[in-house]
């Protein structure tokens, strides 16, 4: 009989997944892990991994302040494959103030939570609720593209062998060669 440890080991923080904009844009499937009110919300990315936190680096091309009583900021961050929509509201004052201070255009690194919205006409939008955003340099952006390419290829290598990727196959009918092409295109845009 193994002894039962009195406390469960501390739950490891969810890693921030690396994902290209064109993959995140396709994300449609969201689920809650557990019954609890505080259970985390996950999305399943089309290349087959669950995620409740992502790390993106790209160019902030535009930011807007919106709302009068509940102020929030929206922004667009562009990577070699497309656009991420980001938002920060007064519920995350730190993140909102960070975003407020940044002048577009600028290279930014964003840690945030992917969120799905359905518009009244039925379209599904993915936006990233910012946890933190900082101005970075071009080299960091290039490193991120390599990092994201590697992680995406790793996910494609494991595609069909994990539960999450089987779910992705079921939900999206993912074609791995399409995402390989996206990765290739993203890498080709990195200047030496």
């Amino acid at each position: 009989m193994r002894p039962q440890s009195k406390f469960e080991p501390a739950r490891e923080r969810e890693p921030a997944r690396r994902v290209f904009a064109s993959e995140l844009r396709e994300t449609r499937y969201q689920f809650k892990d557990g019954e609890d009110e505080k259970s985390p919300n996950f999305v399943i990315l089309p290349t087959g991994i669950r995620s409740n936190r992502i790390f993106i680096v790209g160019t902030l091309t535009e930011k807007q302040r919106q709302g009068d009583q509940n102020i929030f900021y929206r922004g667009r961050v562009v990577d070699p494959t497309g656009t991420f929509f980001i938002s920060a509201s007064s519920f995350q004052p730190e993140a909102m103030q960070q975003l407020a201070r940044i002048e577009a255009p600028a290279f930014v690194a964003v840690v945030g939570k992917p969120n799905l919205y359905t518009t009244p006409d039925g379209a599904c939008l993915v936006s990233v609720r910012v946890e933190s955003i900082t101005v970075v340099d071009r080299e960091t952006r290039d490193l991120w593209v390599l990092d994201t390419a590697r992680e995406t290829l790793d996910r494609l290598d494991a595609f069909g062998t994990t539960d999450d990727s089987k779910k992705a196959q079921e939900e999206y009918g993912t074609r791995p060669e399409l995402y390989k092409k996206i990765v290739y295109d993203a890498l080709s845009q990195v200047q030496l």
Partner: protein
Amino acid sequence: MNLSEVTERISRKLESNGAQPDRQKIESRLRRLVDEFGVNAAEAERTVTADLAREYHITGVGTSGSSSTELRQICEVAPNDWVTIEGKVVALTRPVSPSMAQTGIIADSSGAIRFVAWARGNPPAMEYGEWYRIESAVIDEYRGTPNLSIHSGTTISQIEKDIPLLPSITPIAELKPGVGSVRAKVVQVREAPHDRMLQAGLLGDESGTIRFVIWNEEGKDKLELDAVYNVFYATVDEYNGRLSLVLNTAMYITDEGDIEVGKNETGVQGALVHIAPGSGLIKRCPVEGCNRTLSRQNYCPVHEIQPEFRYDLRLKGVLDDGVHAKNVLMRREVVERLAGITLDEAVQIAETNPLGMDEIFYRIQNAVLGRYYTCGGSEFDGRLLVDSCTASTFEPAELASLLNRAGGEPA
């Protein structure tokens, strides 16, 4: 508990005494005791063995007082064994329950094991440092480690043995829950957080480091920082998957020489995705050996208000490679280099800037958050204590190899 294993053991015991027991019968008897009557497996084994021994008219099996007379080495006993050992009492501890007459550690040349002598059996008191022959004790399991249980059927007799007993020293990295002896250097001491504890800290040898604790008890001495000790028969506990050494059972003697402490060195690569509160410029308690972080009101949890604090820089954060999120803790030198700001500059800025110490937090955050780093250091408490940290640089070769992996035609 696997009853067929027990069945096999009982059968073999009987067969070695010339009987031909029916395994099915043994197992069904065991099952009846365990399943219907809730008897624990060790007791069921004893009962069935004794019953069958009586049936087959065998003496010397399973009946208390005369069983398992074959002398065993402590290092080879396993849970559920009935054993006879000869060993020296190398530690006596205060029993945690009145149902225990004595607890401690008994050792022979092969190893050491914790023991419990149950009060119900009225065992004779054993003395520290004396040798005893302990017949028909049971090995049970307590918190994942074997434990020698001395019960009413156990015979204890003092024996004369004049051989010096040298505990074998285990490298820290190879310690397992139970009893262990190490030769180690005190690399860190922390003031005891409450008065039940005498001292806590970190011991290290070439293979790595381990936490130690000494509970407050008469006659126990503190360890001295940077000194090397031979620690004989400490209790190795496991808590939340981490080991720690309890020195109350141990004899510790200072030793000559120095030890180059191994670092359990690990390296982690990734992006710094989170800078935790409590990073940046902080104030530390000036009381010697304390070094705790003071609150904004200069309050130390142990030493109360400390107006004569000293400043320090640190960074608590999360380095994330997309698969694992690793807590990292960087000390002053590392933070100074990464953020391009010295402690003196930071103090100056904080004292003149309207945001005060927060300004330093933001400056450091802006300098490092979202950047890629490779950090090396030692892991402790699930956190990487960073000794070295370098910013990752763009490798064209990496780009080329990824392009190859992605294959496909050029866009």
